[in-house]
């Protein structure tokens, strides 16, 4: 069983939703972001989305863009990102890591080589924002061969016919984008998420996490009642930006504090209840 399946099975048993923080690898520098990464599980992260910085993050709002810029400025490269995962994996054998980024990073490395290298580093899943189902076979197949899941998106613009095509070759879990927009700019609409989760559950048994627009503990708790996982990105990398001037220790402390708070709300939300 993959780390992702094992994690979702364990969460189901415990009757709680996964808390999934997003950080950009190398933000604000490799050392600090590793210090954050290695402590995320003990702060309540069930799965970690690790951003691969890219110069042109078209699907991201200002907070994640700025985080990518900081990482690139500090010299982040794919090789360093994979080293970071490798180091994390030596100490943590259970927390799944999902790399998130844009297709050109993968393309430049070569899809087959990318799949092999991420698997070797201990990556469990890939989220490639600009690789829709029409184009994803080129990565999905070699990734699967290495035991790495390519996580597919469902969005407010996905109709039922397309949803069926999306889940047909999906594995690991699904990522529901709660708002049509870029990351971190609008607030998650709970009623729409509820309806979307019902649609998703009607066609697949795969777990479904929800992201885009979740910033507060209240929102995290509300989504934890509806979905299998709660993803928070912009609010977390926003803590890096907000505390940079106060020094790296402060950055690490604030990011981890926010993670702890959001994870706490996510985990407490259902009090052991499984959503209908």
């Amino acid at each position, binding site marked *: 069983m993959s780390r992702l399946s094992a994690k979702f099975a364990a969460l189901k048993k415990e009757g709680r939703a996964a808390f999934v923080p997003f950080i950009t690898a190398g933000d604000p520098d490799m050392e600090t972001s590793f210090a954050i990464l290695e402590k995320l599980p003990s702060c309540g992260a069930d799965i970690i989305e690790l951003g691969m910085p*890219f*110069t*042109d*993050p*078209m*699907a991201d*709002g200002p907070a994640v*863009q700025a985080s990518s810029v900081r990482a*690139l400025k500090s010299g982040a*490269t*794919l090789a360093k990102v994979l080293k970071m995962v490798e180091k994390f994996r030596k100490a943590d054998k259970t927390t799944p890591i999902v790399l998130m980024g*844009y*297709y*050109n*990073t*993968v*393309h*430049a*490395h070569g899809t087959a080589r990318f799949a092999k290298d991420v698997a070797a580093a201990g990556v469990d899943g890939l989220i490639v*924002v*600009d*690789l*829709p*189902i*029409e*184009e994803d076979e080129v990565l999905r197949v070699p990734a699967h061969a290495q035991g790495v899941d390519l996580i*597919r*998106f*469902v*969005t*407010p*613009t*996905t*109709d039922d016919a*397309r949803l069926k095509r*999306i889940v047909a070759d999906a594995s690991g879990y699904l990522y529901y*984008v709660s708002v*049509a*927009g*870029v990351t971190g*700019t*609008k607030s998650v609409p709970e009623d729409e998420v509820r309806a979307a989760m019902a649609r998703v559950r009607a066609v697949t048994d795969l777990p479904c996490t929800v992201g885009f627009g979740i910033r507060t503990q209240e929102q995290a708790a509300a989504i934890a009642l509806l979905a299998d996982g709660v993803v928070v990105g912009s609010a977390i990398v926003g803590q890096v930006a907000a505390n940079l001037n106060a020094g790296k220790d402060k950055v690490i402390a604030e990011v981890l504090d926010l993670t702890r708070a959001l994870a706490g709300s996510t985990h407490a939300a259902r009090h052991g209840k499984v959503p209908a």
Partner: protein
Amino acid sequence: MNQIPNSLRAGPDANGHFGAYGGRFVAETLMPLVLSLEQAYEAAKKDPAFHEELSGLLTHYVGRESPLYFAERLTAHLGGPKIYLKREDLNHTGAHKINNCLGQILLARRMGKTRIIAETGAGQHGVATATVAARFGLPCTIYMGEVDIERQKPNVFRMRLLGAEVRSVSSGSRTLKDATNEALRDWVANVHDTFYIIGSVVGPHPYPAMVRDFQTVIGNETRAQMLDREKRLPDLVVACVGGGSNAAGMFHPFLDDTGVEIHGVEAAGDGVDTPRHAATLSKGSPGVLHGARSYLLQDGDGQILEAHSISAGLDYPGIGPEHSWLKDMGRVKYYSVTDQEALDGFMLLSKLEGIIPALEPAHAIAHVCKVAGQMKKDDIIAICLSGRGDKDIFSVAEKLGEKL
């Protein structure tokens, strides 16, 4: 997949691929939109009423057909082949961009979209978009990099006069690439009512094919005018290439004419062996940006490099996927011309023909100055003069050390 065997004009395939290039590399939120745009465009293509309306606007609003002008003094100056200029600079709004904008806004209307967005580099596409948005009474937002806003002030003011909102983009290199990122972000957040008028043969399918189709009027007219005037096809067709829309439109009708040589001219900025250029095909490598696989200026890790050109319209690190395909198969040869050479071409055409070209087609003029000497006296060259140079007088004056 190709409907016409042995034709280079049949692409792209059903998934928008020109060989290994093109495709639809966009976020899932945009995919249903991109697919419905494709359906709407396919339906419009088959609808005579759409073509009739577009053709009426091209005649009466844009002023088509544009002349194919024999540049007598430039020909004499270069002492070689006969040089013709396809006068897209005489179109309403001063460039070829309007051809595409009219096609797309008619499509937006058919799709029931009520808001228009666009990106712009030199401002020509922004002006053309603001123009058609005014003409059809639709609100319009134009994204433009801070750097471009500074060097293309007259066009910024024009867009505002036309009622468009110009949003300054301060991320990244603050030029066309970043304006495109920002327009994509707007689109994904406003999918329900917004139509994104992309200005070049870039972006996800169907944009590269659709924009080319709307610009093909340039090449179709040139071909017919040339046959009428010279009773034969030109030996060489030349156009500048940034994203590549005027070139795609100029080249497409000639792709199957094996006797016609075709040259695309990229911006070499300070020189292709310096870090400051925009010669994507000459110095780039295949990658994925803004929805399509094509040649890109990028580093070994797939990070996009900043392009540089004196011409804001060519200052883009990518290029349309069809050009990448045409380059690889060798049907079109791509060259590059430096800022200085383009500036010399700009001055030369102004003084010899009384035509101030935009800095973009000044690159094509400069290239012809280089190759004319190797051609025969009775050869014929057709250059796409894609836009007029009024917008560039400030940048040129600055280069010449003059204050306006």
